[in-house]
């Protein structure tokens, strides 16, 4: 990183609070603080800056009715008028001014597709059955 890079404050190793005994003027007895949990020591890395990605793994579809079980592989395409995020396996896409907004749009599309296919599950043709199977592999309704 360059000299102007932001500094990350690491608080993992902060010292334990120091117990200060009270003067006991009014007969109060000091009570030490008990730490019930221990902070985990973690390893932090600051990376060199990369380029904007052309692929990413989506772990949310912005719909709390669903949980993502398996990351959704998203292909990103940058155009003059915005970003297109597509999931090629189910042939769906979302658009937006940024990667995140395009992924949000794709998430809404996936949720709607899941609902519509699941509602007609018994009447689906082989192609749509396959699409629903892929969707069920990646996302699930929350109980």
């Amino acid at each position: 990183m360059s000299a102007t890079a932001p500094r990350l404050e690491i608080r993992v190793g902060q010292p334990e609070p120091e117990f200060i005994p009270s003067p006991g003027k009014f007969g109060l007895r000091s009570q030490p603080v008990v730490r019930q949990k221990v902070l985990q020591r973690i390893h932090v890395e600051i990376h060199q800056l990369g380029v904007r990605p052309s692929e990413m793994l989506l772990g949310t579809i912005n719909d709390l009715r669903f949980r993502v079980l398996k990351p959704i592989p998203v292909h990103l395409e940058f155009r003059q008028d915005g970003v297109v995020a597509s999931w090629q396996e189910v042939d769906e896409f979302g658009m937006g001014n940024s990667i995140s907004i395009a992924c949000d749009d794709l998430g809404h599309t996936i949720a709607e597709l899941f609902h519509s296919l699941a509602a007609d599950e018994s009447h689906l043709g082989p192609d749509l059955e396959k699409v629903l199977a892929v969707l069920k592999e990646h996302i699930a309704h929350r109980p």
Partner: protein
Amino acid sequence: MILSSSPGKRALTLCFLAETSPIPTLLAFIVCDTVIHDVGTQKKTLVGVFDIVHSPIVPFVINSVGLYAKMVEGAGPYTVKVRMVNLKDESPLMEVSANAAWNTPEDPLELGMNFQGLPIPEFGTYEFQLFANDIYLGRALIRARKMEMPPAAPPGGK
């Protein structure tokens, strides 16, 4: 950076989970001035929650930025990554990652990060993106706006 999850009393339950860590659900991702972690109570205090920062000029530096994230439905080892991008062209400004062990699946994982001297090269919208094991979970936005100064009073005027 602060990462906390209860120590693994029930760590054996991890054996029932899949080989790879499940994808966590992001409940909150908040930008503030500072995240304070109280060691005694394990509580986090978010000081000065904001999403707009004003400056008369660019480039400028935000002296103190704290990021707080709360995730649920995870278990096992994760590499948590935060990436800051300029939404004008998705150009990355900063990327930080940390390894965390989610020992108790029933408990949430909280993440607190404090940055000092975050550079803002131009006015516009910036995004903090959160990833777990390189899987995108969510984002938080801040907007850098020009501070409009009031017009100077004419000499001798009221």
